[in-house]
């Protein structure tokens, strides 16, 4: 199940507002990709295009070279899990399993039932009677059990408590080991989920500002701490995201490649290089003014 998703110059506009502008990327299968961005950054718009929920205003998105929108073969490969309003839904979890079984050739009924048990889903109750967390657990169950080569979870954890979220993350990792596919996880809970990601996309104000493998992204972001003057001297050549100061000690958060020359300079001055988390990078890269 090797699948390649390619987006070329995607633009989406609603009336006067431009939700996405000129987004291009390639995603390879067998990866867990984190899509992060602030509220209104355009995450859901992007995922909607990917799942053929809507057509891009311009540009194209393809799976293995085939355009997705209204393409029977392509849409069958994608599952898009998002918050859904079930307040008028009288059908039960079991009935939804039957529906998925009928329209999703890869739907694994046994696995769905196992997941229902893990999440303690009441399978004979109408969905409208389930709590928000249970409804999310149900969405997640369908998403995992559909076993489509491309599975998208758009803030799928809403209302789920911490233990349920942990089970969800664990299931993604286990499922990725058993049946590798392309998972795209859009999230606000960056610190909680960053260990899942192989690759990260950060979108900000409708633009893709970062696409990196998780390892190299974390290498690009680092902190430099030490005596104020020394740190300032080194930082002048770097892309500084934020700075903190306590007495004569200063710490800066930096994003970018660390050249050998700078590294030597840092060592000479006895400054300390530290790691930063994805969450810190995300906050700084998307803060006001950027």
């Amino acid at each position, binding site marked *: 199940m090797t699948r390649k998703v390619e987006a070329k110059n995607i633009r989406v506009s609603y009336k006067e507002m431009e939700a996405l502008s000129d987004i291009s990327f390639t995603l390879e299968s067998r990866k867990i990709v984190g899509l992060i961005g602030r509220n209104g950054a355009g995450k859901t718009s992007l995922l909607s295009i990917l799942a*053929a929920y809507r*057509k891009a205003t311009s540009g194209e998105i393809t799976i293995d070279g085939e355009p997705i929108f*209204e393409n*029977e073969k392509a849409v069958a490969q994608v*599952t898009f899990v998002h918050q*859904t309003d079930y307040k008028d839904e009288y059908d039960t979890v079991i009935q939804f399993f039957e*529906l998925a079984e*009928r329209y999703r050739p890869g739907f694994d009924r046994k696995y769905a039932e196992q997941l229902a048990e893990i999440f303690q889903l009441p399978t004979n109750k109408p969905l409208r009677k389930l709590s928000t967390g249970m409804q999310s657990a149900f969405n997640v169950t369908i998403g995992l059990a559909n076993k489509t080569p491309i599975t998208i979870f758009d803030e799928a954890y809403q209302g789920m408590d911490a233990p349920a979220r942990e089970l969800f993350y664990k299931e993604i990792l286990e499922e990725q080991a058993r049946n590798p596919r392309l998972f795209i996880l859009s999230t606000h809970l960056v610190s909680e989920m960053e260990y899942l990601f192989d690759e990260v996309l950060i979108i900000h104000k409708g633009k893709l500002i970062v696409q990196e493998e998780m390892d190299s992204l974390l290498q690009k972001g680092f902190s430099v701490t030490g005596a104020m003057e020394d740190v300032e001297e080194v930082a002048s050549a770097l892309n500084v995201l934020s700075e903190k100061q306590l007495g004569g000690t200063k710490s800066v958060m930096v994003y970018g490649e660390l050249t050998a020359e700078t590294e030597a300079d840092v060592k000479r001055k006895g400054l300390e290089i530290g790691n930063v988390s994805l969450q810190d990078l995300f906050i700084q890269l998307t803060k006001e003014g950027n």
Partner: protein
Amino acid sequence: MNETGKKVTVDLYAAQMKWIAWYLPIVYVFYFVLIWLLNEPGIRSMSLLTFTFQTATIFMLICGILSSLAFLPMYVKHGVTRKSYFQGAFLSAIGLAISLIGITAIFTWIISIFNMPLFNEVVLSSLGENSWLLTIISYILIVIVYFLAGWLIGLGFYRYGGSGGFVSILAALVIVFLNDLLWEFFTPIPVVGYLTLSLPVPNVAIAIAGSIILAVITAVLVHKIVKDTPVKVA
């Protein structure tokens, strides 16, 4: 049509037939009660088929509205294209209309062979005393037009929101109005019935042809809206 389109047709037909299984018995009971209790010539001469047909127009209109609001997002979510949904919803609506009118025609015929005094004054339809085939075809066609009008309204609201929804209501009203006008001489009709507009209508053949044209125009409009309609998240 591909496999998915066929599946959608069968499933939508089954889902809506469940509603019919509730709706028809209620209408039948209502008919018998009315004809039993009311001594009004207008009611006493009305056949079960014509009585059911009149309420079926509104029933089908509502089915049309629900088709877009409930089924379109559900199918897209399950990896079905809008095209397959359109085919499935359209064909299932035709099946629905045939079943609805067909089942009622059979019951009406059964009543007629018993020759009960209660139904002595009943006339099948204004298309003629024994115009079974013509009546059935006409009624099927008319309820299909009502379904399509409802579908147009539902989609207009789903896709364009309030203002666009009202435009689609207007369009649907025009379609239904024209359709009723075509049939004015032959059937008691819900919408034009309240207006005292009387235009000379040549004959049933023209009414049938006109309804088919209206149905095709509405279906084309629906298709144009549905083919790239965005599905909402949440």
